[in-house]
């Protein structure tokens, strides 16, 4: 698996993590937009969680009204540029394109969307306007996709918005959790700055809301609170050796990679535990960092994995090997560091996954990445009076994304349990409108 040399500097890093969906040039955008059929009741629109009028923006690109196209996109989705690159378009808009039924390549909707949005950002096109002040204030906790989208929509409705973010950058997992070959840090931050500049919400960075006292203050100072808190750290596996040096949580590893880039060292032999999209990302990423062997180990069968098949294909393309129907028993150590994983084989019996007795074996490695899901922020949520969560720790909210504490609204991963950026953005917009309806019932 010597496809990738270990990147020693930023340019080598960028080469290894070359963009999967590079920015289109004008000619390519013109040719691609020419192919759109302008379907009636277009399936792509219905497949988009934010319901962007896709045939319209594609037609606008085709008529060189690119800023108009961006306006169409941003009217429905504040993360227009980011979603164009990070959305799983294969299962959303592009997957719904009618061309698929004719075995013709679907329209490259994601890249067209990114093209138009980038043009608007680059030219600093004025697309948004804050609404006339309605003298109401909303606190937004978390500057992720949900928080920023809610802040944007609230500003257009005339609210003063303060966003409280624990980390140093906005956009949440868009910058901290998405694979670097899907979008660059610069692209993410440019869009965030573009939104913030035009809509004028205040983001307070490195200002985590952690205590009941802080929450009480927010409740006092603001007319409503929006929770865009996402999920927590990688869940514990609760097996021996988990705390050894060389064992990482996937979310934490990817965040480090996004921030430190080529300065992050992957092991030589890496084992990634998990079968979801994050596992695929982590496997691809360690391969691109120059690991000589990356094994993806999942407790169920290949078919049962949660990841999209195109994500698995992407990992395979960079040399990742799949190891299915195995579950980790313990991590092996050598001089206090991870030296391998002891697995036991599993099989499905009457629909239940059971371990095969006596089938233990050890795979050597010097790095383990656990991509076995993120925990819920249950402890934090307990501090909010009357706020209920379901059995899986997800915030319970109504159709307007109002929680069981009427002053609190919530959207994104903390409500849906973990989905795409686009879902969080779509929900947050509805939540913001819900806040408006709550504070101005007669509006």
């Amino acid at each position, binding site marked *: 698996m010597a496809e990738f040399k270990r990147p020693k500097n930023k340019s080598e890093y960028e080469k290894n993590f070359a963009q999967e969906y590079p920015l289109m040039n004008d000619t390519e955008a013109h040719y691609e937009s020419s192919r759109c059929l302008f*379907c*009636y009741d277009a399936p792509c629109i219905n497949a988009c969680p934010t319901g962007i009028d896709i045939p319209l923006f594609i037609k606008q690109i085709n008529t060189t009204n690119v800023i108009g196209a961006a306006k169409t996109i941003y*009217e429905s989705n504040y993360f227009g540029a980011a979603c164009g690159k990070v959305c799983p378009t294969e299962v959303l808009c592009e997957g719904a394109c009618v061309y698929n039924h004719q075995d013709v390549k679907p329209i490259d909707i994601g890249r067209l969307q990114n093209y138009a949005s980038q043009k608007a950002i680059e030219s600093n096109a004025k697309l948004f306007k804050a609404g006339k002040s309605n003298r109401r204030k909303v606190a937004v906790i978390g500057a992720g996709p949900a928080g920023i989208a809610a802040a944007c929509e609230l500003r257009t409705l005339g609210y003063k918005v303060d966003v409280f973010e624990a980390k140093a950058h906005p956009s949440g997992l868009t910058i901290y959790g998405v694979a670097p070959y899907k979008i660059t840090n610069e692209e993410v931050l440019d869009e965030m700055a573009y939104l913030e500049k035009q809509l004028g919400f205040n983001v307070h960075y490195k200002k985590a809301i952690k205590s009941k006292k802080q929450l009480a203050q927010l409740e006092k100072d603001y007319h409503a609170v929006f929770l865009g808190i996402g999920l927590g750290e990688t869940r514990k596996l609760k097996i021996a050796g988990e705390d050894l040096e060389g064992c990482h949580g996937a979310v934490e590893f990817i965040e480090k990679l996004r921030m430190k880039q080529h300065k992050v060292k992957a092991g030589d032999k890496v084992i990634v535990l998990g079968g979801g999209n994050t596992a695929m990302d982590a496997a691809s990423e360690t391969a691109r960092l120059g690991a000589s062997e990356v094994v993806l180990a999942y407790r169920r069968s290949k078919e049962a994995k949660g990841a999209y098949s195109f994500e698995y294909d992407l990992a395979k393309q960079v040399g990742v090997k799949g190891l299915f129907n195995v579950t980790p028993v313990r991590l092996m150590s050598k001089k206090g560091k991870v030296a391998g994983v002891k697995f036991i084989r599993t099989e499905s019996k009457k629909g239940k996954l059971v371990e095969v007795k006596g089938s233990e074996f050890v795979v050597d490695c010097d790095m383990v990445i656990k991509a076995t899901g993120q925990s819920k922020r249950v402890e934090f949520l307990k501090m909010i009076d009357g706020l209920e969560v379901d059995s899986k720790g997800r915030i319970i909210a109504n159709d307007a994304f109002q929680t069981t504490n009427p002053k609190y609204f919530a959207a994104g991963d903390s409500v849906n349990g973990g989905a795409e950026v686009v879902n969080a953005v779509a929900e947050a917009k509805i939540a913001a409108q819900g806040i408006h309806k709550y504070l101005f019932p007669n509006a």
Partner: protein
Amino acid sequence: MADLSVNFGGIKAPNPFWLASAPPTNSGYQVMKAFDAGWGGAVWKTLGVPVVNVSSRYGGVNYKDKRLIGLNNIELITDRPLKDNLREIEEVKKRFPNHAVIASLMVETKEQWEQIVRDSENAGADGIELNFGCPHGMCERGMGSAVGQEPKVLETITRWVTDVAKVPVIVKLTPNISDITVPAQAAVSGNADAISLINTIQSIVGVDIDNFVPYPIVDGKSTNGGYCGPAVKPIALNMLKNCAQHANVNIPISGIGGIETWRDAVEFILLGAGSVQVCTAVMHYGFGIIREMLYGLDEYMDSKGFETIDSMIGKALPNVLNWEELNLNYKVVASIEDEKCIGCQLCYTACEDGAHQAIALPIAENGERVPTIIEENCVGCNLCSLVCPVEECITMERRDDESKKQITWQERTKKGTIPNTFNDQRGGGVGHYIPSPADALKKNEKYKIKRGKN
């Protein structure tokens, strides 16, 4: 292999594909290159009175990603010295004796016409084409389309030429006239051996919307030009048919107008052209485009059993009638093949908004997208089949009783059975489905304008 050679009104050529008088025939260099590539003939860029050309001469019409479906030019006739052109004609004829070289001419006085005809013949031209079509620049000086639009003047000048010419004379007609058969008949009266059509159509191809000037722009200003390219083919075919069917226009016709492929050429020949002339396709793709045309024509002729071009000429003419001669009993309805349908629903919206509300949508909840034809509403207009992006997905199926005798408007007029009040039962306009106007507002259309509400 079919015989592609032609004898067009006495002008012989190895095939019917000729270059039209235009920039591609500006020089001996270009014509030799074209013949070498496979072209059968060339009508030389018009020789005539001295001119000066402007810089910036062409404007294009693009459709989506397709460049130059139409081209407009404000270039005039040749701006090279007459003696250079004549010398090069001679040189080309020497090297390609069996190819057709036709001199296109445009001068003013009788003496000038007689002189230039003799000069062209002396240079070895196989024929002469009179440029009565140029719709810009030259017409302002009383030449080109100014002649083509005045049948009497056209006839007079044609006669000046035919009286002295020893080689066949072709009159090239302008389409910038309401009835093309009038100048065509004038050409016949002037003893022309053949006609060619169409020359370019007066046009403005577009406007620079930032600077408020049409294209092409000459120092911030523009003028109308002559339009050609694939977009003009339907207009050319109709004018060709009008001339070819006219009893008094009984001379060969060289077809011109948007010909780019073998298929275009076949269509022109089937509607009566004895040779075809090409310009825009060469200006876009170069002389090499000829190979597609030659191979395609040859294969078509073999597949249809045509051994000569002559045997194909005008084959479609008997099937072009006046509207009043069409069978009013004939009835087709659209049929959608479910297996092929990709669910774009363009047929639905086209029929719903642009035709007769004869297509129904499936129940969306089932995830189903294949529309259905409501046969009783379908008037058989073809629109759905034209907008459908899938080949052969929507076909038109015959529904009338074929054993029944046909009836035409002409026959009904004779019988006195035409309607005499607005759309009475006999007119056929009563009885087919029209929704009530207010029903439109109940449709929750997906494309409603959403902006401007907040």
